[in-house]
């Protein structure tokens, strides 16, 4: 059975009328076309790809030989706290370690946290939101009140406490961040489901006797994916920034494993003298976050605009 795609049009008064139609350009292709047309989006995606390649490449290559292509852990106290030079492009830290190497190795941590934390929050948020939005009634009320209760806790504190509780390993951090940030996705999904549940084609499917899960997965979900995907992409920089904040406070992935956040954290006492230890890791975090935000926003524009 072909999926009915939710197409929308405007009547002469500019009001939206919706009707299920079979269109030649699927919404996905339409969104991708508009996205590709956006210059800023292309640059942002380009940067993301570069970062991913750098991170992945470094992780892969150093898997086989820890000292190659560059060693983030070799300490050389005679070379400590050197500003950027031709030998150490980004300078050295307080233990004489090459900052560039540490940053390359840290890239994979930051990106991994970003992606997996969002994945976790997406998974939880999707399920909770879908169930609440589709079934409505008491289920909806209970779930949404729980969301409200969860929001009563200041998120950063919660993360801090949880990580302190469980220990700052990569997995713990990722899971905790994901566990704390699913509320936004859940609310969004619930909203979408509440709306889509009332559309004619869903009502039709119910009348035809399709069972609920089928309806959710095959009819509603495909039409809701765009905003969900946008939320996901926009959630990645939040996760990256949170991880950086945690590292900064000492609750992130622990040294000697380098992350962008803990390079800054380790150098807290030297910042006034070693500006490069702040500038470069922060710049990396900034550029990564910015790229994801711009890409996510372009995606949102592409999925919402009317051409």
């Amino acid at each position, binding site marked *: 059975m072909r999926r009915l795609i939710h197409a929308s049009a405007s009547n002469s008064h500019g009001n939206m009328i919706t009707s299920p139609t079979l269109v030649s350009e699927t919404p996905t292709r339409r969104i991708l076309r508009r996205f590709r047309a956006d210059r800023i989006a292309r640059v942002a995606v380009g940067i993301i790809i570069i970062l991913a390649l750098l991170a992945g490449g470094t992780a892969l290559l150093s898997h086989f030989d820890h000292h190659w292509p560059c060693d983030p852990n070799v300490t050389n106290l005679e070379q400590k706290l050197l500003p950027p030079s031709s030998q150490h492009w980004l300078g050295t830290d307080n233990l004489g370690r090459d900052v560039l190497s540490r940053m390359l190795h840290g890239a994979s941590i930051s990106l991994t946290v970003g992606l997996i934390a969002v994945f976790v929050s997406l998974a939880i948020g999707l399920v909770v939101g879908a169930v609440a939005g589709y079934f409505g009634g008491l289920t909806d009320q209970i779930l949404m009140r729980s969301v409200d209760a969860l929001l009563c806790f*200041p*998120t950063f504190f919660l993360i801090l*406490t949880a990580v302190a*509780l469980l220990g700052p390993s990569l997995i713990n951090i990722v899971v905790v961040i994901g566990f704390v940030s699913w509320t936004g996705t859940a609310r969004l999904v619930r909203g979408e489901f509440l709306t889509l549940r009332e559309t004619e084609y869903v009502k039709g499917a119910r009348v035809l006797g399709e069972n609920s899960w089928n309806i959710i997965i095959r009819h509603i979900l495909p039409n809701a994916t765009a905003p969900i995907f946008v939320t996901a992409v926009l959630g990645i920089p939040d996760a990256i920034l949170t991880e950086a*904040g945690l590292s900064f406070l000492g609750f992130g992935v622990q040294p000697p494993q380098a992350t962008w956040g803990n390079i*800054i954290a380790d150098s807290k006492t030297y*910042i006034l003298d070693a500006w490069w230890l*702040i500038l470069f890791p922060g710049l990396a975090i900034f550029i990564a976050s910015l790229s994801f935000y711009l890409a996510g926003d372009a995606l949102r524009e592409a999925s919402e605009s009317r051409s």
Partner: protein
Amino acid sequence: MTSFILRRLALSVVLLFIISIISFFIVTMTPGSPYPWGELNPKISAEVKANFRKKFHLDRPLHEQYAFIMHDLFTGDLRSMKDDRPVMARIMERLPATLALNLTSILISLSFGTLLGVYAARNAGRWQDMAASFGAFLFIALPGFWISYLTAIVLVKGFGVPILGTHSYGIAFPNDLAAGLDTLWHLLIPATILAVGGIASQSRYLRASMIGTLREDYIRTARAKGMPEETVLYKHAMRNSIRPLVTGIGMLLPAMIGGSVVIETIFAYPGMGRLGYEAVLERDYPTLVALNFVVAALVLLGNLVSDLLYAAVDPRVRLE
């Protein structure tokens, strides 16, 4: 309306109770000992340890501990495990500074965020909008601690301007006004940095909301009536566009208390964020429970304020 408020307050009390139970259990399950000395420190005799446990009721079952903590919290007698000082006193002494910092920050982010959002919305699709949006994302992506440090480096190292703490150390001020201005100055930099992300996100929300509002029929009516564009935007469109922001207002204050941990640490600002961070580090249960309680109370109060403001802004809404 009064019945609405009363019912809300009653509900809030129940919720607070539940939240306090949850936060108590989270906190007590934290591994690591609460003793202010090392667990294995041989210099502390078993007797001292036993006294400590007795004093903080650690020898009682969990639900009794909870009862004790709640009782002490409300009688003001709750004491920190770290230094045996009353917890509420510590929180209260940091409250003014925290409120000053966060309220200033909220003020800055709401006012500039609104201006930026309207600017972007009225020029929607043109380069001004793209520039404003790009600028907004630029601000959101800036890591707070990065900007804080860079600012500190530039101002302190580069210009020798004192910005840490709440007043400049070692300078005697000729009068109270000068001292007050100095405090204001110390407040402004962290507040602005805190607000930067807020400006950006408020402006994005307002822009999206306003673009939607500007498509409505009554905006066309306002223009057809001959209203100047400023009136159309700030009178007709604005009140209909701030609804999503109003729902978010309640959450701004509690969110900032948690989110300002990093800023407060860097600027050595004595706020409740830092208090909480230190309490987590030291496993100081009473402080954590009390702090969570205060923040949860603020959240519930904030939600109430949001709902009331929403009804004030939209006459179609009736509070039941």
